């Protein structure tokens, strides 16, 4: 295995995170927000795996293990997000988050 560029990977995961961030901040459709969150989480998990792969000793194992657990977390979070989506839909009749502004001052 040859050396793969360090910065390149980090650039990728950071870029993916930025994309996810952008999606969270802009999109008004709840499902799209969920998707954006998933993108960001995947970027983070990718980071873990990447650093794990490039460390010697037990570091690498830790990286992958943590990544496994995190994938579980992310899946769980999607499930809960789905439940919230359904509740929102029932309450408001729409999935446009710009219309769920009861917390406005």
């Amino acid at each position, binding site marked *: 295995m040859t050396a793969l560029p360090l910065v390149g990977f980090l650039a990728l995961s950071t870029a993916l995170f930025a994309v996810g961030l952008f999606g969270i901040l802009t999109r008004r459709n709840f499902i799209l927000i969920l998707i954006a969150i998933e993108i960001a989480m995947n970027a983070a998990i990718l980071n873990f795996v990447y650093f794990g792969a490039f460390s010697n000793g037990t570091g690498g194992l830790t990286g992958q293990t943590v990544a496994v657990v995190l994938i579980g977390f992310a899946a769980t979070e999607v499930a809960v997000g789905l439940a919230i989506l359904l509740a929102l839909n029932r309450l408001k009749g729409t999935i446009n988050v*710009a219309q769920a502004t009861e*917390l406005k001052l």
Partner: protein
Amino acid sequence: MLDGLYGWAFLVPLFTALSFIIVGLAGTRMRRLEWGGWVAVAFAGASMVVGVLIGVGEMVNPGTYTDVRYTWLHLAPAPGPFPNGFTLVVGTLVDPISSLMLIVVTVVGFLVMLYSIGYMHQDRGLPRYYAEISLFLTAMSGLVLADNLLEFFLFWELVGVCSYFLIGFYYERPSAASAAKEAFIVTRVGDIMFLLGIFIYFWYYSSVAPGWAANGFLFTNGTAPYLVGVLGGNSTTLTVAGIMILGGAAGKSAQFPLHVWLPDAMEGPTTVSALIHAATMVAAGVYLLAVTSLFLGFTSTDQLAIVGVGGFTAFFAATMAVVHPDIKRVIAYSTISQLGYMVMAVGAGFAMVGLFHLFTHAFFKALLFLAAGSVIHAVGTQDLFKMGGLRKSMRLTAAAFAVGGLALAGIPPFAGFWSKDDILSAVYSQLGSHPAYWPFFLLAFAAVFLTAYYIFRAWFLAFSGDHPRDLNLPHAHEGPWTMQVPLVLLSALAIGAGLLIFLPGFQSLLLSGAGATGIPPVYGTTDLVISAVSVTLGLGGIALAWLLWGNGRVYALRATSPAQPVRRLLLNRYYFKVGYDWIGAKGVYTIARAADFFDRFVIDGTVHGFERAFALLSNRLRRIQSGVVSDYAAYVVAGLIALFAILLIVAPYVVARLGGG
């Protein structure tokens, strides 16, 4: 033998203070309201006993200065303006002048208190009256016995407050309430000047005699006056301080131009007028001048001012008494006039002579007031033009009033003659070295004539003739024994007080006031001439009064007479009150308006400005909370970026710190 008594001098104010507390708290709960009065009388009597004993003791063995002191404030020595510490004390000082005043205050106080039992018989407010009078006696005797300037001022203020209470005793009457306010406010002007005078003395003597202020502004250190020998001659500062003291005395003693409150103070009960506004409180101003001249000293400029104020007031007040129809106000003006004589004497350097006149004046003025009170009590009116022929039904009162009038007019052998003539002689003796005194001396002399005239005008109007002019007047009769006894006693004093001067003990008492230039013990020819002239003027005044008002006659000016404007001027008190009211309305009101404007626009404006600014700001900030979660997420991210930025900037320094440290 009586020396030991001097240490108990504080009992004099203490007894009446106890009376104040007891009657004030428990008076309304007594079975019969008059008992409060008897309690007060008892305590006043006890006070009188102690006071007279002390006075007699001083007369037998004059010149003894005794102090009992209690330190109520003490600052330890420390670097600064008072390197040896600072002490304020209260104490009593028994010396010839204070004991003279003490006799006056306690005796007149007791007699007036006794008289009040018969005179005041209303259902409400009686305990309040006796309590307030007791408090007043406490304050007055405390003032007389004060051994330092600050204690003096303390009791001075207390006396003013009691005067306010007592003038406004019938507080439901608007005229009484406003008269009380007027008295307090006008004397306040004087009080402020007095206080300024104290400040100036403090400031001046802190360099010349620093021990004086640091030890509590004492009048004497036990053997001799504190500041004798330290006087600064003609220093301007001392002159100004003296003028301030004169201002304070003028306020309290109703001298020109602060005289306006005293005639209105007649709104109070007649007994109050007798005690406070004849014999004692107004005398406090003269006492202040006497004490200042003996212990602190006046420059010659001050003396001229004092003589001027006194002499002018003596004449000025007498002119107003000449036309007034109200019996009490006539006597009030005469008080102002006689106080002018006393002030003039102190100004000329003869403090003891002035105090002697104060002594005799207290008795015959109180007598006049109480006699007038007897009349008012009998016929229910104060208007002289409604009275008449009362000598037939009120013999004692008529006689008493006549005795008081003769004393006032200065007819020998009545008391007023001795003291008033002493004043005239004293001032005359100074005319050579102070030619500026001449106009005031002449004014004082003229006032003798006027004095005799107006007081007997009053007597004739009230007592002569066959029947009252107002036919609806109730039938007159003498008052109860509690009213008659004081009249008799005071008449005796009005006759005998002057003759005391022939007692060697009394003479030495008058002569021994610290630094006093005494009365001339031997009468020279000039003095006899002066006496003769003044007696003649007095008799002439009485004669004129008989001509115009005797036998029930009423002398009325023709409506077209050229003297009418003069009469109106006098009746309206030279429009002084109008003038003061105008000053108050225009001057003070303008200042009040300006202050209100400032308050509303500037201060409130600032507050409201803050209000509006905050409301605006919060309105703007409110829009951050849009309720849209994405916005909130954006804020979080922005904050995170800022945090990272700060960390990035700070990081090298942290690393360097950790690495280096």
